[in-house]
């Protein structure tokens, strides 16, 4: 078990290294030097450019530039944002917190709703309850997350029951710690619910199918042949096996959650990584784009790593090889 975890963590290192390379490559691949344009931009001070040239080797060949960048990345110096004139790492730190809060909030909510519904539908397979839920899930899967967010914003704007946009209200500064938390949570609700609604459908369907598959497996016949009660057959024997693949799927779903979160952030004006990277793209702020891409990737890698370690805890076949 320990060896499995260590191995799994070690595997991440070359992966992240490869990701830095791809991140760098994407920005530098197209013909023409993006930085030559910067020098003509009056907004950017001579000093910034001088400083960055020294740190990142901007006048050197692209390959050498990569090693300059990498060296700096490992000392957590991700460069300076051209448009904000502050270190990229500072910007990211600010926004990353909000993105993680949004993702974690919606992941919990999604699982909390779709797992029980999935089990319910699987048990009712073929009956109207299952058909109804599956149809709703279809709709959920097919509505784009940004469109759900728009509809929710539209609804909220009509009824004005929740604050739209930002993370805090005006009175934030004077509020107590608990009020601050509640206020933050209120602002989180619109993007959070949008993202949750976008995710429930597919997770529900996966859970339903997993549960059904496990229900039809031989060990469930054994459990019934032992004369166990239906609740034990469902919630012990079937559920434990149906949940395992869900943990693996969690790793895959994470990519969708992060992408969905980014779009929802933009639509609902939630200041997270999504907005940051969009603004960076619009203002051609290359270091910020590279860094955001890399951070997004690292988030996903970490999520997958956690899923893989969790699966080892849950499944003795992985744990005790």
């Amino acid at each position: 078990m320990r060896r499995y975890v260590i191995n799994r963590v070690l595997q991440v290192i070359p992966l992240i290294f490869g990701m830095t390379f791809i991140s760098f490559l994407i920005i530098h691949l197209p013909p023409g030097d993006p930085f030559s344009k910067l020098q003509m931009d009056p907004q950017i001070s001579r000093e910034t450019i001088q400083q960055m040239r020294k740190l990142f080797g901007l006048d050197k060949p692209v390959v050498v530039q990569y090693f300059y960048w990498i060296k700096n990345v490992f000392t957590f110096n991700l460069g300076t944002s051209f448009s904000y004139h502050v270190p990229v790492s500072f910007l990211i730190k600010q926004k990353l917190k909000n993105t993680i809060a949004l993702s974690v909030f919606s992941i919990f909510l999604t699982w909390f709703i779709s797992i029980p519904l999935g089990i319910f539908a699987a048990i009712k397979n073929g009956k109207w309850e299952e058909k109804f839920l599956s149809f709703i899930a279809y709709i959920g899967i097919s509505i784009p997350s940004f469109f759900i967010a728009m509809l929710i914003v539209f609804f909220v704007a009509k009824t004005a029951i929740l604050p739209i946009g930002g993370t805090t209200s005006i009175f934030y500064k004077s509020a107590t710690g608990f009020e601050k938390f509640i206020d933050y949570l209120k602002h989180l609700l619109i993007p959070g619910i949008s993202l949750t609604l976008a995710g429930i459908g597919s997770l529900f369907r996966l859970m339903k199918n997993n549960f059904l598959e496990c229900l039809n497996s031989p060990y469930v016949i054994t459990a019934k042949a032992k004369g166990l009660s239906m609740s034990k057959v469902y919630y012990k024997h079937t559920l434990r096996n149906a949940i395992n693949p869900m943990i693996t799927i969690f790793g895959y779903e994470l990519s969708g959650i992060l992408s969905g979160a980014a779009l929802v952030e933009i639509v609902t004006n939630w200041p997270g990584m999504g907005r940051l990277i969009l603004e960076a793209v619009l203002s051609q702020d290359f270091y910020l784009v590279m860094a955001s891409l890399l951070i997004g990737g690292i988030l996903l890698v970490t999520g997958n790593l956690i899923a893989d370690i969790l699966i080892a805890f849950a499944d003795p076949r992985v744990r005790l090889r």
Partner: protein
Amino acid sequence: MRIFLRRLKKTNKISFISFWIIVFLYLLAIFADFVSPYPYDLQHRDYPMAPPTKIHFFDKEGKFHLRPFVYKTELVNVAFNEYREDYSKIYPIKLFVKGKKRKILGIFETDRYLFGVEGEGKIFLFGTDIHGRDIFSRILYGARISLSIGIIGVSISFFLGLLIGGISGYFGGKVDAFLMRIVEIFMMFPSFYLMLALRAAFPINLSSIQVYLLIVVILSLIGWASLARIIRGMVLSIKEEEYVQAARALGIPTYRIVLKHVIPNTFSYTITALTLSVPGYILGESALSLLGLGIQEPYPSWGNMLSVCIGNLRVLTNAPWMLIPGFFIFLTIICFNFLGDGIRDIFDPKKW
């Protein structure tokens, strides 16, 4: 094809219906010049954010007209975006109405449109946008972008995925290890981040055709990795199938084994995967256009038609019909999802 449809009808009714909805949407896109009552960029200055035109059968006196008609509307309150119908004259809706000359698909010249009203009256089935452009017409023209990018993008990804996955799976060894590491790296970026980063590598202001091609390239670059990995897995397992071993034992050359035994047996899966991945491309295009990084005004796409709704609560609350393109995105995606599931059922021998 006919057998395919008959089976689809038998195994999965909803997919069968979805198939015909998709066909209908594509026909609308192709014949947008003929079906849409107005050009996509025609600005009706007097009608900004006009609500969908009401279609009447009964006039003010309660008299029934067999031919539906509309009234002329007028903007009465700019602040609240209020329109009022002018009951003095009725404008009947006519089929094959005469208008400005247009070229259908750039080939056939015609001055007849499918439907419309003559004279002063206007017909905006889905209302107008802030510039007074007919949303219905723009949706039809926008469909050309959104629907074609799905198909073209999937084809390119599929080609890349089949090639790289096939090579990786069949030859194995170091080639496989190398290619799969690259695939893994690509898959470990959240697709939206990757999409924006790829977009950032190119200038923001590009011509429409350049942007269109760029979007296709970007979406294919994002999509190929997962397809390649799936196809590799399939090839790996098919390679171990005993009928492939039997073919090797018969002394059949490798290329023929791949062509006759390996690839055809991935089809049932790949065709399903293909259909189910079209929505991803439509979504990708809409998202890019929505954020102003894709198709640029005045040319419409379902994505950029929605972008006015972001962070603009006044527009959103006063003119909710601006959200209609979103429903078209949804309709297309749900139809492709149903169709994909139907195709999977067809290929699943258990369902016969």
